[in-house]
């Protein structure tokens, strides 16, 4: 998920971090709110707030709550955490942009694949197509993982392409770790075709850390400092966890 979200935040999302409420910004909704740490890191990277603040994640009274809060943190478009609601909110934003005559603004929504099991997602998939919301782009993190195991074992979603197509969506599949494919699919999705677009990004949870890759058990367990250092090493960084924290702390 980090790879295509990085492309989104640094290449496609038209925002002004120092003017988070700029009227003509693109909108982004993190419907899978448990991926908050990623959004906070990207926001800090874009300059919404100093990177040092990342160290307050989940701490008492921090603005960086376990799940993002639009009341606490400017730049978050809507509070999330209860899965399956963000796509409807994004749809509302897409409708709003059109009604305001701003069809050039794009609304992006991120969902997990397990999240697609919520019925309300399919209510939104139906209505977004009915209302021809071609300014709405849904990104699905198709990592085949959720809390109780692999998605295909917990509650099968496939064939997902057929499902979205039959609901009237432009459907694009891409390798969610391959930067060129990611960029090509974002560019295709920008084109206004009269249909909403879903980008099905095939990903591997913990990609780049072979010791931890593709194990659903890692969903809700925070790694220990030693495990973090191991992960950083596998990802090719020279810093340990403690050193990385120090570097962050100095960025204020």
């Amino acid at each position, binding site marked *: 998920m980090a790879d295509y979200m990085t492309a989104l935040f640094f290449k496609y999302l038209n925002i002004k971090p120092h003017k988070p409420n700029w009227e003509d910004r693109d909108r982004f909704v993190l419907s899978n709110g448990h991926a908050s740490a990623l959004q906070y890191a990207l926001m800090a990277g874009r300059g919404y707030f100093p990177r040092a603040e990342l160290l307050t994640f989940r*701490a008492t*009274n921090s603005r960086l*709550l*376990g799940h993002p809060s639009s009341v606490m943190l400017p730049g978050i478009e809507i509070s999330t955490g209860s899965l399956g609601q963000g796509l409807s909110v994004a749809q509302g934003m897409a409708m709003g942009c059109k009604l305001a005559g701003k069809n050039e603004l794009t609304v992006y929504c991120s969902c997990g694949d397990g999240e697609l099991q*919520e019925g309300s997602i399919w209510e939104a998939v139906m209505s977004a197509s009915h209302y021809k919301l071609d300014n709405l782009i849904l990104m699905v993190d198709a990592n085949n993982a959720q809390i109780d195991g692999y998605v295909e074992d917990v509650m099968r979603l496939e064939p997902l392409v057929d499902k979205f197509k039959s609901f009237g969506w432009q459907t694009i599949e891409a390798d969610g770790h391959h930067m060129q494919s990611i960029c090509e699919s974002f560019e295709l999705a920008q084109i206004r075709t009269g249909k909403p677009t879903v980008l099905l990004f095939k990903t591997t949870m913990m990609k780049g850390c072979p010791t931890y890759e593709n194990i659903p058990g890692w969903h*809700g367990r925070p790694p220990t400092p030693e495990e973090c250092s191991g992960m950083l090493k596998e990802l090719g960084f020279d810093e340990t966890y403690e050193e990385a924290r120090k570097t962050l702390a100095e960025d204020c």
Partner: protein
Amino acid sequence: MSINYRNILPSTQWKNELTRHAYGETLVELGSTNERIIVMDADLAESTLTRYFRSAHPDRFIEMGIAEQNMIATAAGLSKTGFIPFLSSYAIFLTGRAWDQCRNTVDYARCNVKIAAAHGGISVGKDGPSHQSMEDLSNMLSLVNMTVVVPADQIETRKVTAWAAEYEGPVYYRLGREKVPTITTDESPFIHGKALEVVDGSDGTIIACGIMLSQAILAAELLAVDGIYPRVLNMATLKPIDVEAIHSAADETGAIVTAEEHSIYGGLGSIVARIVASSHWRVPVIPVSIENRYLTSGPPEDLLEIAGLTYIDIATALLKSLAMARGEFEVGGVRILPEMEKGDIRELKFGG
């Protein structure tokens, strides 16, 4: 004089344990003797610990994926074919997102469905307000046929689970995320609809449920140092409530404090205040509940403190209620003069 504990252990003997672990284990045991028991989860078996049942009785475990509404109405259907479904997810999603399924199907049709909700209350902690639940009890208490229970600890959770399997009708009960003190013992009775007196006393009564029972007992221990001995009731069943125990508390102790890990709107405090107001209007009732606010992410202890749900808050409230019962407002060395009564006395910080 010293504290008179009944049916429970004093705080020096408490050990912290998980209520959801007790829930998972009890389901496995019940499932071995009762073939009609079915367990369902919505992608949280790893967290609610229904995964124990999934391993022990895989043919009677139904994984529903992340689809709470579908799960609840499916459970209703299963109950109509003679099965006894226990289902779990987090309290806020079961009683929030799926409230209409709870109301219009499970409750209205009086289905024999057991809803065991994990991550009740705000002590869920760092996940933040989206996963904290301070509304689940009022959501469920407003349902006509629903029995609502808040077990205090892991032992009581076992008893409630076993009782729910035998009882015919819809039941909602709360489990927590964190390890909480085990206060009750194997011998402490759980009687559906009955309060359990856990500390004997007559200087007011503290009525508590769930994890707030431990804070209530700590408050009683703190007050005993000053020679004040409140009664403490474990009100595990919120609906049907033990009206008689509330009347006795009002008659015999003259002042009441309630303590719950829930919003001030519609939980234990509201119920007790309503009952006392319509029979003993001179008896003060002070609720220790969460004021009208969302909390934050943070460790559970911090959140309880921010929300004003500690034993100190309870002890302070008890002193205040006793003072009110005496017709004065003198608490913790701060004397609130009669002319201040009209002001917002909630604003004043009493005691420690």
